């Protein structure tokens, strides 16, 4: 290493201060995220300054307005041609504004809006001491079962902090698939993960289980984040840049040398391979792919059901978006290395999720394993490495997230004295007592199973078609086999609901407020529309299928 090179590691030639320009921020292009972040901060202020009894209404109002406004901003950007005719890289190269980013942001915002309705539901639990309560702990800080908890319940406290937490998580998710450099990626990852860890711990019933879920999620999530960060460091060492575009060029070999200071490590393939593997590992953790899925069933089961639904839908959308961008923008030059690995991950994820789900006896755990199997199906589309692959994954994510939120919303309705009755045996004969609720849940299960005329089928067909065209025919065959396995346990639930005798002491179906009804209604409508007439949305996903570099 030459003397100047070493020297330049810790010194730099001084420039006049005036040469540092103010960063140029494209506020218009960043509007969706900024609106959500702003509303989240307003939410924090509401917690601080608005009287307790008005907070719920204020928070709900602000959150709904923010999500709708952010969605409108996404639509406006798309109408302006971003994603179809032009694409931008905003905020000094930190954030990409392109088709996949806008499509996924739109999906996340809609999913969050529907999820928000289930967050705000206050009619399901019986009123405690004359106060209507939601699914969240009265006072998160009080020890479960303690006197202070009882006091909090008596006083009618509710954790209205969930609304700003939700908005912060949404903001992180909006940036995650749009991040155009590795640091932004990591910051976004943390911004959406931390509120989710908190939200998981806030269940009103079964608080210990909820806190356990949160700790598990936090510990494993922290590990995954650490791996990602380590991978980012190694990749920086390899490429000398955090920017996706530059790293891609270095991987391709079109750019040889970016930073003289890194002349020693740059181009070292070991750093590239290990770094890329660690980053992808962190993302696979977030999507819940085998073998990084261990947290999924526990967290899904323990978290408050509205949070589970939101998390299962929106996290998956954001994480798959980021994974797509990493693999398609940063590492296309490395695809001969990552494709075999992803093949393996997709296969074990599809089969593992489907097979383990068979033995589950809790509806939330069952849906957790089913979400793992679905992650496998989506990975099959990711592997296609073609424009069809991108658009099919986008479509699948949009279809899947509404089915998921709807299904978890139905789970919140089926209750007995101990809160939600999630044990499968309690669902026996639900179709006799509440045909409508059972029928709606059956629609969601059939969509999960990929029965034609539901969105699940259109999505599955799209990803499998892309995979087959990409030369992954064996993956498709394994995919249909695991679909058949998965169909077994979805059908089992339907059998239980419709053909089993109802138990005398079985759960009742709570009559929800219009909020949850809207959430479930939107879920059903999207499931059917995307199943019967998917063309418009496939077009949308197809037009949005080009990344900016």
């Amino acid at each position: 290493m030459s003397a100047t090179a070493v020297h330049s590691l810790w010194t730099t030639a001084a420039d006049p201060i005036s040469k540092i320009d103010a960063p140029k921020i494209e506020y218009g292009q960043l509007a969706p995220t900024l609106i959500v972040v702003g509303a989240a901060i307003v939410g924090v202020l509401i917690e601080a300054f608005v009287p307790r009894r008005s907070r719920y209404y204020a928070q709900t109002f602000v959150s709904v307005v923010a999500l709708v406004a952010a969605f409108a901003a996404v639509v406006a950007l798309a109408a302006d041609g971003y994603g179809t005719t032009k694409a931008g890289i905003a905020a000094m190269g930190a954030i990409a504004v392109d088709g996949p980013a806008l499509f996924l942001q739109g999906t996340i915002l809609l999913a969050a809006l529907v999820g928000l309705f289930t967050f705000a539901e206050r009619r399901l639990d019986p009123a405690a001491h004359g106060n209507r309560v939601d699914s969240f702990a009265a006072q998160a800080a009080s020890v479960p079962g303690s006197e202070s908890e009882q006091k909090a319940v008596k006083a009618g406290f509710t954790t209205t902090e969930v609304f700003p937490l939700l908005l912060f998580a949404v903001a992180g998710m909006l940036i995650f698939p749009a991040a155009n450099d590795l640091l932004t990626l990591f910051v976004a990852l943390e911004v959406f993960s931390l509120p989710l860890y908190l939200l998981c711990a806030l269940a009103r019933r079964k608080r210990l289980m909820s806190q356990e879920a949160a700790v598990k999620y936090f510990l494993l999530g922290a590990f995954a984040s650490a791996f990602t960060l380590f991978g980012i460091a190694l990749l920086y060492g390899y490429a000398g840049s955090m920017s996706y575009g530059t790293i891609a060029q270095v991987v391709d070999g079109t750019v040889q040398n970016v930073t003289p200071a890194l002349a020693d490590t740059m181009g070292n393939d070991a750093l590239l391979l290990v770094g890329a593997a660690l980053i992808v590992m962190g993302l696979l953790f977030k999507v819940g792919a085998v073998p990084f899925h261990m947290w999924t069933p526990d967290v899904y089961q323990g978290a408050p059901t509205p949070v589970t639904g939101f998390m299962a839908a929106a996290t998956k959308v954001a994480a798959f978006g980021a994974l797509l961008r990493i693999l398609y923008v940063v590492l296309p030059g490395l695809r001969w290395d990552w494709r075999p690995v992803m093949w393996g991950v997709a296969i074990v994820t599809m089969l593992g999720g489907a097979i383990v789900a068979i033995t589950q006896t809790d509806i939330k755990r069952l849906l957790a394993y089913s979400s793992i199997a679905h992650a496998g199906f989506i990975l099959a589309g990711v592997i296609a490495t073609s424009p069809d692959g991108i658009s099919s994954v986008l479509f699948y994510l949009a279809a899947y997230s509404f089915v998921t939120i709807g299904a978890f919303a139905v789970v919140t309705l089926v209750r007995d004295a101990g809160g939600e009755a999630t044990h499968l045996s309690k669902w026996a004969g639900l179709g006799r007592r509440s045909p409508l609720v059972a029928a709606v849940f059956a629609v969601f299960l059939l969509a999960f199973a990929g029965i034609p005329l539901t969105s699940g089928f259109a999505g599955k067909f799209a990803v499998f078609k892309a995979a087959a065209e990409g030369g992954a025919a064996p993956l498709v065959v394994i995919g249909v086999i695991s679909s058949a396995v998965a169909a077994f346990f979805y059908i089992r639930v339907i059998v239980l609901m419709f053909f089993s005798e109802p138990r005398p002491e079985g759960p009742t179906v709570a009559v929800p407020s219009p909020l949850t009804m809207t959430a479930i209604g939107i879920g059903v409508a999207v499931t059917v529309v995307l199943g019967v007439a998917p063309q418009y949305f496939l077009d949308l996903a197809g037009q949005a299928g080009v990344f900016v570099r």
Partner: protein
Amino acid sequence: MSFPLLTATAVLPAVGAIATAAVPAAKRTVAKWLALLFSLATLALAITVLVRFDPDGDRYQLTESHSWIADFGVRYELGVDGIAVALIALTAVLIPFIVLAGWHDADPLETGSSRWRPTQGFFALILAVEAMVIISFEATDVFLFYIFFEAMLIPMYFLIGGFGDRAHEHGEKAAATQRSYAAVKFLLYNLAGGLIMLAAVIGLYVVAGNFSLTEIAEARASGELNMATSTERWLFLGFFFAFAVKAPLWPLHTWLPNAMQESTAPVAVLITAVVDKVGTFAMLRFCLQLFPEASKWATPVILVLALISIIYGALLAVGQRDIKRLIAYASISHFGFIIMGIFAMTSQGQSGATLYMVNHGISTAALMLVAGFLISRRGSRLIADYGGVQKVAPVLAGTFLIGGLATLSLPGLAPFVSEFLVLVGTFTRYPVIGIIATFGIVLAALYTLVLYQRTMTGPVKPEVSAMPDLRVRELVVVAPLVVLLIFLGVYPKPVTDIVNPAVKQTMSDVQKQDPRPEVEAAK
């Protein structure tokens, strides 16, 4: 734009299903009449299709074509050939009888819960199945066909699992368990078949780029589209597997006896006479047209499997103690004949097979529905519980006999013509298989006549001594079917006229000609 007749024929029962399902809980009778009305209206439309269809015209007629999911290369394309017209007519004819026969099958036992509406559900599901079956017969787009081929499993599944015979030897709880077992088995078998087919459907898209039956067949014929031999074989196997499960062909048949045994007689007829026909129909329309070379390649194996079905089904039917199970195994034997006729690759064989589909539908419907009336009277499905019924209920016994004789292909009744054609068609190309298959007829005589003898003749058992004869509603169901059996047995020309040109087309698709009759050269 002309009136979309085919769409209307499929949509009408679907509308009927929704209307029937929407009838309030207390108005059960309204729901029944509504269902009957819609099934009759569908029959009227199906007859219009039959009349408007010109056997000597284009191959696919009354075609409709609209863009649907352009991204998948999927179009909403309908069109009927003679085979489809015959089967649509069969479906439309049978559904009103099924509705009538099941008039009281879904009356709720107790009128407790006001939101549980089994009767409305039962008839709505039957109409939903009708709609999906009809559109699968009409679809000339592989994807469109696949969607309804799969989707029809769901209403079928609820029909099997949700409604069963009232009486059961082990009580209502055991009956419910067995029913749901049968329903799940039905669904899993067919779903697995369908998913394997999905892989093949995707494969077809990758190879051909679209799903239009006519376009793909044309491209193949003109040599524009070349499939590698191994690709074609894999795709063929994927399609055939699904159809063989549905049809059902040995060894994929085991769901059928369970499903037919546990469901009510009208639903059993719906399964075997209507829904299963989609499987055999699809072999003719999709397997042979899309993959002619692979079909020829697979013929020997399929013929042997069909032969096993014929003999095995008949042998097991002889040994059954349960009336419905016996009819189910008899059906497996008959499906063996149909599949043998299709893959014998002779025009007689395929005409016979198509005719057999129609005739088997009518004869099974007659036999099964009468058996259902019998079972509902005594409350048992076991053959041993009956005896001497013909002395108490002569009309019931008489119609049962006619249904049974049709099942064993007595000359003069409709199935004889078709079975004869299938055997002749098979014999001209594969004499050994044709000869062995003939034993199926002998066994058929055995199981039907033994069934009749044990239940209807002999001393009158005390339990059946007060058995009422067929009521008016039941006569209305059975009499037309018997008339049809006799009419088509004496004069099958109307059906063969419609079917034959379509069969010729299919034969030319697979580039097979009938073997020339060989005359021993005199020396």
